[in-house]
């Protein structure tokens, strides 16, 4: 499903050069639930961003499905992300000025959909994460766990084949974290969604199919 070949990522600023990723090759199969672990600063987010086409590698090749991504335009990339990928972030990244339902509808705004379809799909997605009773709330009126569930609903509303989650439970206590983890596992099991998740939590990682460990930008396991 995702094929990374010899990925290298160098961040250059005026004074320093950081080698964030060093020659990473990784295959993620369709329907797989993969977790990535490693100490802070080892390049986990960088790797996830490259998989999510949010960032381009300095070297190497990213294929998603049967699509080579190297020469895609900004517009094609945006379209591809919209159709195939769903993102979940540690800090939720909800738009605080929009109600829960509108936040979940967001990805559909960048496709051809009617308002009715959007509302229907978003409501369904919210049902899946167990938040259908909070659709008129604003994000600031929700708990952290609830916010992350909104973010998951937003990630799945467009029925993407792949979900990329960067420390989705990082800001939550372990009970909340387990709840979120359960939702992801169900998504993977029932909807056969491919999931790549960055985590600091061994317990979470153990619930996934496979674990990749990074150290200093290189894959160690």
């Amino acid at each position, binding site marked *: 499903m995702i094929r990374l070949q010899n990925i290298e990522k160098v961040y250059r600023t005026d004074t320093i050069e950081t080698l964030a990723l060093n020659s990473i090759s990784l295959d993620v199969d369709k329907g797989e639930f993969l977790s990535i672990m490693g100490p802070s600063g080892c390049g986990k987010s960088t790797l996830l961003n490259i998989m*999510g086409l949010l960032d381009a590698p300095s070297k190497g090749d990213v294929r998603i499905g049967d699509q080579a991504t190297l020469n895609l335009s*900004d*517009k094609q990339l945006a379209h591809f992300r919209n159709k195939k990928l769903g*993102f979940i972030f540690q800090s939720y990244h909800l738009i605080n000025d*929009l109600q829960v339902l509108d936040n979940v509808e967001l990805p559909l*705004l960048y*496709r051809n959909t009617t*308002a009715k379809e959007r509302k229907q799909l978003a409501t369904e997605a919210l049902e899946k994460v167990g938040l259908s009773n909070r659709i008129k709330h*604003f994000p600031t009126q929700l708990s952290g766990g609830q916010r992350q569930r909104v973010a998951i609903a937003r990630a799945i509303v467009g029925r993407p084949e792949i979900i990329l989650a960067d420390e989705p439970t990082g800001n939550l206590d372990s009970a909340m974290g387990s709840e979120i983890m359960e939702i992801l596992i169900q998504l993977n099991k029932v909807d056969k969604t491919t999931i790549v998740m960055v985590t600091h939590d061994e317990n979470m990682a153990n619930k996934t199919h496979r674990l990749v460990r990074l150290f200093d930008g290189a894959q160690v396991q």
Partner: protein
Amino acid sequence: MYRHLFKLIWNKRKQNFLLMSEMLVSFLVLFAVFTLLVYYYQNYKKPMGFEYKNVWLVNYSNGDKIHNGDSLKLFYETLKREIRAMPEVKDISLSSSNVPLTQSMIQNGFFYKGKETNNVNTYQVDDSYENVLQMKMLEGRWFNKTDAVTNTVPIVINSSLKEEVFGKEQVVGKIIGDDKAKKQIIGVVADTKFKGDYEASGMASFSRIDSSSIHWMGKMLIRVTADAGPAFEGRLYKKIAGYIENSNVEIEHLINKRKSINYFALVPMIVLSIVSCFLIINVALGLFGVLWYNINRRRGEIGLRRAIGATGRSVASQLVIETMILATFSLIIGAFFAVQFPLLNVFDLSTGVYMTALVLSIIFIYLLVLVCAFYPGRQAAAIYPAVALHEE
């Protein structure tokens, strides 16, 4: 997408309120300035309606001290004959104090069929006045000697007054006024911008100086030849000063009077324009700053939108369109206030002036907002999604 933007704007109404009031205030100021500018410009485009070059204005006092009505008339006839005899003089006319290109005004009501029209400038002048100022007759004729013996008092009106009171009707020969003072219109003269290039001519009616108003005369208008110079001015001065005893005589040139009365209109216009320029610059900077600030505050949102499928361009246009929608709301509110001016006829300006000013200020505000939103929008488009998401 528009629904989405409206929701976003509505939910942020508190933050947007300030921005909108800023746009509203600048719109109203612009509207005021443009109204004035359009009004002045429209007047400026109209013909002067009279010739002020080579016309001199003589101010004098004590003209009536020693004479009674009939001998005063004779006294003036003699004076005018003597002045007219000077080779540099083409023609001369006495005038009531509201001579062209001065601030002096005399206004009266104009009665026709029991209806009064107010703010009509009334001028008491000689038969030669039209020739001195080279005014243009549109209908009928100007006064002449035969008018001295008619029963009804003859008057000449200008085309603004004609249009206001009679519209397209034929007016020469019409009897106007109330029962006490009936008058007959004998001619229509083209509008004259007696208050300078930038002011409207207004409505005017002219009548001959009669035996009672002759006591109030204190001005003469003299059309001179192009080569009349200071030497002649000296002789003219001596002649008049010698003829009217104990009089303060002053000679001015209408060409200079025009300059000073134009300043009178231009100075407030320039001051207002400068003030509004500063205001607009201020608003532009404020707008730019707010939008810039917005984009930085909303970097997370921008990154997120990019991640879930927005292109750089659509993010940029979203920000610009959002601002334009805010501007539209402000302009709708502003236009509501602006149209009250013609509706309530606050300043007696034509609806066309207001509408032109309205359109101009709307265009100006839109351009201003577009320019101010464009650059921050482009900056937003250039944000890397990974970087923007990373920052929060």
